[in-house]
């Protein structure tokens, strides 16, 4: 018996997840800059203020460290706050509160304290927002023990992971790609629909090469897979969905089947998610590999403003196709 589905957008998935969890649990509340009266700069939280009122849906000052700190304190003392940081770039201002406070409270107190705090923020370039509104800084918090990190690529994944995160007793961060808020997709029609953290999803099955892709890069990878399919290369696309915890088992099983892997993430290529994933595949799946693990990421330059420059810096399907082709040219098939 399958659950009926509805088609909604990635942005609507955010709104539905928050509304459902706020109806379910009165300790859940939501705060951030412009999230209440204006419904958020991306308009994804329109309507929440009307339903829940200004006590539980709060417009805050432009004060990232302050609101994150308040979120940590409220989470420590019986509430389940959802804090929105409008642009992931601004999370840098709240880093002490996440990295030194929220992430470490449970451990440092020997398990006495828990911080059921959900942080929603955005990533992604592509709208000429320039260097301070376009970064994909998901590696930063994935580096920190004590924080859980989700990076959903579809409305269904976003809704399920956000609901799980609100119910989780740990600090969690949801990285939403701002270019995907209008993306439509089927979502199970069930108020209790959730997705566990640490379970990757195979977005397309294939047999010749594994593309491990995150967030918007899942869609880039799917386009590349279509193009490669016409050349007779069968691509499997694996979406880890959460970076911490990370489901390496699914990735390794895929590589065992395909013997080749390319990792793609929209963040700067150096010292980031692609480096971590490629290293772990090389380490844990070495015996299955017929070619070196390749990785594709953004250029190591600040994201430029000009429409003539920005697309150059972001991974696209053509680059993925070339990278995959390289694997087969370098290695006798």
């Amino acid at each position, binding site marked *: 018996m399958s659950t009926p589905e509805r088609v909604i957008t990635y942005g609507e998935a955010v709104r539905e997840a928050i509304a459902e969890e706020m109806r379910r649990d009165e300790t859940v509340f939501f705060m951030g800059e412009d999230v209440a009266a204006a419904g958020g700069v991306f308009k994804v939280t329109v309507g929440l203020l009307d339903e829940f009122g200004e006590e539980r849906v709060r417009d805050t000052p432009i004060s990232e460290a302050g609101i994150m700190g308040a979120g940590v304190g409220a989470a420590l003392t019986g*509430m389940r706050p959802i804090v929105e940081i409008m642009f992931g770039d601004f999370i840098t201002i709240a880093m002490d509160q996440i990295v030194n406070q929220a992430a470490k409270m449970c451990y*440092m107190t020997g*398990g006495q304290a828990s911080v059921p705090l959900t942080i929603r923020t955005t990533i992604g370039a592509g709208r000429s927002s320039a260097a301070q509104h376009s970064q994909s800084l998901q590696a930063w918090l994935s580096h920190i023990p004590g924080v*859980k990190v989700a990076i959903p690529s579809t409305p269904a994944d976003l809704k399920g992971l956000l609901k799980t995160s609100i119910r989780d007793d740990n600090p969690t961060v949801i990285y939403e790609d701002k270019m995907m808020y209008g993306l439509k997709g089927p979502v199970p029609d069930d108020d209790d629909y959730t997705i566990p953290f640490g379970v990757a999803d195979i977005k397309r099955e294939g047999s010749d090469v594994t593309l491990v892709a995150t967030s918007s890069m899942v869609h880039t990878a799917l386009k590349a897979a279509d193009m490669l399919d016409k050349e007779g290369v069968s691509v499997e696309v694996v979406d880890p969905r959460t970076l911490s915890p990370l489901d390496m088992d699914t990735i390794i099983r895929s590589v065992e089947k395909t013997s080749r892997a390319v990792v793609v993430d929209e963040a700067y290529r150096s010292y980031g998610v692609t480096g971590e994933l490629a290293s772990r595949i090389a380490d844990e799946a070495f015996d299955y590999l017929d070619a070196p693990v390749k990785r594709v990421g953004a250029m190591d330059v600040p994201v430029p403003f000009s429409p003539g420059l920005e697309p150059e810096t972001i991974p696209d399907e053509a680059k993925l196709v070339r990278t995959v082709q390289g694997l087969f040219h370098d290695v006798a098939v």
Partner: protein
Amino acid sequence: MSESLELITTSSDEGTLPLPEPQCREIYDKMLTIRRFEEAVLEIYTQGLMRGLAHLYIGQEASAVGICSALNDDDYLTSTHRGHGHLIAKGGKVDRMMAEMMGKVDGYNRGKGGTMHIADMSLGILGANGIVGGGMGMATGAALSGKMRGSGQVAVCFFGDGAINQGAFLESANLASIWSLPVLFVCENNHYGEYTAASDVTAVREHVAERAAGFDMPAMVVDGNDAVAVHQTAVEMVERARAGEGPCLIENKTYRYRGHHVGDGDPEKTYRTQEETDTWLAKDPIPRFARRMLKAGMVDEAELESIDADITKRVEDAVTFANDSPYPTADEVTDHVYA
């Protein structure tokens, strides 16, 4: 002091002791417990039984005890790297604290936090904090939580003169004020941020508390070595906060008799003068309070000695308890990363 800043400077009449006897006894007991505990910390640190850093609270006891004696058990508190006094004042147990100092499994945090991170969630102690200003957001959030739950709880945020220059203060004070949150920002101005005089690095006319005017909240400058004055101020501000009238900034003027941390040299030979320290030693909060109890006829010299002996024994027992407790075993190292 400019009147436009609406600062209230508070100290109490030394000739009186306007609090009930049981409360006076408790205040004295807590202050002396802090003093003896810190002296024991100094000793175990010097003996090599404690590692890391030890930031002693000696000299500031009236601040912690004066404030915490105005709180309920379920009120919240955030503390600092110099936090031992706040924890004892809020009801922390000296044996479990001492075990935590030594990284032992019977410590409050099972040895995982140490001196700068002791917490007792059951007493509303949300933790000491190794980041200067690190507890300000947390206290503000705890106050928001109490307000949203309608619990009547207040939160006290202890911090030093150094933290008043952190951005976290501005952001937290602003939030607390716009939302009328029940939080008391308590600045313990011991006049030095680590090894630098607060007056050299803080843009105020005279008092740190002047900053409150920028956040539309009341401020009080208190003789922080006068437990009665601190207590009376706290009672008034806690009542105000519980009534929904919002946050305040209390500046307790005090002094740490020791250095920034144990083993960092002699402050009087580097960044402060012996004359200044002597002036403050003459205002030591514990003998001051004892004199008032004696004058009020609540105790005599013999009883003061027996109180001290009892406390000293309790602290010695705590050291023994801590020494006897084992280190956590290696299999615990991955516990509690996640709840």
